Structure formats: structure tokens, C-alpha cells
């Protein structure tokens, strides 16, 4: 079953050149004749690396949402907000389109991304043959939406920089922002580590 897959042409991971490498031997590293990258069948240790990043990101997701992300000190009053209470603050001020943007980017996107990656990992490990094209599309979507989670990090950055009026008003970045940033980076690395070609690595999917 795997022998069939291995005799198929490989696309160079860096320059996309179609290469026909009969078998990649252990210890020898064939290189792409065009760009010099080491020729690999699939991303190395893709599943293990992806799981590691997904689990680390899921762990960061908890403190990222529990700890306050920033504190606004205005005329002596300090108000700390978590990511979620920031959304509620926007809602209570009638800024619901904005609340929706922040809620989707900061809460829904990371969670959906983690769920999608866990599903993709399990489906590949279970050697599922269910709708491979849709699973590949799901992966592409996962990869494309991850960056939008950075919105809140940028908002905090801008507020910290702009609102620095000494006794009048200041904004401080809190530990929640750090965990949140770490979580976003980890989900980006997780999506990067996953190799969608693994979805298709079943001999019975190869003719389609």
C-alpha cells in the first residue's frame, strides 16, 4: 500500500519541481536539482510535531482567556479586562460589529482551528478515506484564518502605546496577552507542521 505512494512523483517542498525519486534511502539526503533543498516525501515528523503544537496551544488557551489581557487606568480607576470581558465591554457600548470582529478573531478562530487540526490529525492517524478533498479544504481554511487572531494583540499594542498620559490615563498589557500571543504563534506553527498530503496517502485514494 505504501509502496505505491512512494513511487509517485514528489514535489520539491521549496520550489515545487516535480521529482521522480524512486526511493529515499536512509542516511542519504537527495537534494532538489533546481533549488538544493533536501528532497522529502512529506514534512518530517508532521503528525508528532503538529500534535505537540496543538496540545501546547490548547494549554495556553486557558490562561489566555482566564487572565486579564490589559488594564486601563483612567483618572485613578483601574479596569482589567480579559479577552472575553473586552468583547462584553464593546457590546455594552453598543459597538456590536466590533464586538463580533474581536469575538470571532480572538475566541472562535483559535478554538475552531484547534478543533479542526485535532480532527485532521485523528482522521489521518485512523487512515480515514472519508471526503479527502473536503478535509484538504478544511486544512487550507485552517491555515488561512489563523493570522486573524492577532487582531487583539495589535489592539492591545496600540492602546498601550497611545494611552500613556501619566496620571490621566495609561493602558498596561497583562499576562493574558502574553499567553494569548503564545497561543496564536503555537496554532500558526501547528498548521505549518501538518502535511495535508498525508490525507491522500492511501493507495485506494491515488487514482481519483
Amino acid at each position, binding site marked *: 500500500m505504501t509502496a505505491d505512494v512512494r513511487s*509517485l*512523483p*514528489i*514535489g520539491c517542498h*521549496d*520550489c*515545487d*519541481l*516535480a*521529482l521522480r525519486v524512486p526511493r529515499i534511502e536512509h542516511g542519504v539526503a537527495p537534494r532538489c*536539482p*533546481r*533549488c*538544493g*533543498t533536501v528532497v522529502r516525501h512529506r514534512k518530517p515528523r508532521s503528525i508528532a510535531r503538529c500534535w505537540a503544537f496543538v496540545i501546547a496551544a490548547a494549554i495556553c488557551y486557558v490562561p489566555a482567556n482566564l487572565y486579564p489581557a490589559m488594564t486601563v487606568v483612567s483618572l485613578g480607576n483601574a479596569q482589567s479586562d480579559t479577552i472575553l470581558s473586552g468583547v462584553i465591554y*464593546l457590546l455594552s*457600548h453598543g*459597538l456590536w460589529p*466590533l464586538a463580533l*470582529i*474581536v469575538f470571532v*478573531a480572538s475566541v472562535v478562530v483559535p478554538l475552531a482551528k484547534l478543533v479542526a487540526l485535532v480532527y485532521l490529525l485523528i482522521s489521518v492517524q485512523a487512515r480515514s478515506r472519508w471526503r*479527502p*478533498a473536503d478535509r*484538504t*479544504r478544511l486544512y*487550507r481554511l485552517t491555515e488561512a484564518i489563523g*493570522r*486573524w487572531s*492577532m*487582531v*487583539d*494583540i*495589535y*489592539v*492591545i*499594542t*496600540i*492602546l*498601550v*502605546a*497611545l*494611552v*500613556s*498620559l501619566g496620571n*490621566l*490615563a495609561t493602558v*498596561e*498589557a497583562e499576562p493574558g*496577552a*502574553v499567553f494569548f*500571543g503564545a497561543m*496564536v*504563534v503555537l496554532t*500558526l506553527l501547528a498548521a*505549518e507542521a501538518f502535511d*495535508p*498530503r498525508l490525507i*491522500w496517502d492511501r493507495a485506494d485514494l491515488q487514482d*481519483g
Partner: protein
Amino acid sequence: MNSRLIVCRDCALLNRIAHLPRGGSARCPRCGALLARGVFDSIDRTLAFSLAGLSLFLVANAFPFLAMRMQGLITETTLLTSVWALYEQKRLLVAGLVLLTAVAAPLLYLLLLIYVLAPLRFGLHAPGVIPCFRLLRRVQAWSMVEVFMIGVLVALVKLADMAQIVPGIALWAFALLIPVMAAATSSLDSELVWDRIGRPA
């Protein structure tokens, strides 16, 4: 170069692609991934967009993008001073992340494009052109100017009832940088560049 073989990045299917008409694109018949785009004058166009992008980037970083007026006090901020403000609050990871995604990656992306394409336009190869072009795709994933722009808009509305907010020149430069960078990316024909810079097989 009438037809070429492309292995799909997402599902590893081997595709033979005929010459694409201008504006045309080829998608993988099995998983729908974009395989190639037909771009007319790819090198010149990408180079033009990259140079325009670099100028906008410099303006976007040299001037304040927002100013705030509150009870007679004015503060204004550039991209780099906002990174610095985070650094001063000892939020190194967040500061580093913003520096990477809003400043370093977009700048490096534009510089790499210019470094590879400008000499190529005159039939020359810059030293180290192959590793530079390999690096390009990795850098691109970390460049998030369009997300930063949404962040600015959210911050703007959030602050609107607290103080008077004045958008600066840099903000307009940023707004223009986004479509210009997208145009540079979509007019780049990587296959063509690899054919020119790659070692002869």
C-alpha cells in the same frame, strides 16, 4: 515551457499544466488547490509593486499612524514606538511578535522580492539568490499588515469615546500597502523565477 509538471502541494497529485492565458489560473482537479497563475510580465510587475510597497512601508514607519488628544495632552505613536512601549512594560514576547509580524516580516518580504527580481530583470543573478527566494515563502506567512490594519480600526473605535483620535499619514500609507503587497504576491510567478535562477538540471 509550453506545458509543465506540477505536483500539488496539498495532495501530491501530478498535474500537467498547459500554458496559461493572462489572468487564468490552474487548480488541482482533485483537491482544488491553486497550482499556477498566468501572469503577463510577472517579473516587471512584481518588481514595480514591491518597490511601491517598500516606499509605502517606509512612510508607514516613519510617521505616526495615530494621535490622541485628551484634555489638552497629545500622544502619538508610530509602529516602532508601540513595540517599544510593550518592551518597556516587559512584555517581550508580545513586543517581539508585533515587531516580527507588523514590521520585520513585511519589510523582509519586500526586500527579498526586490533583491531577487531587480537583478533578474537585467538577466543577472544576485549572490545567494536561491536561499533568498526559498526564504520568501516562509517570511510571507508571518507578514500580517492587513490584520494590523483591522487592529488599528478596532483600537480607533474603542478610544473614540475616551479621547479625540487623529489618524496620521502612516495610517493611509498602511491602508495602501495592503493591496499593493497583495498585488505583488499575486503577480509573482514563482515557477518562472525558479526556472531562471535555479541550477540547470
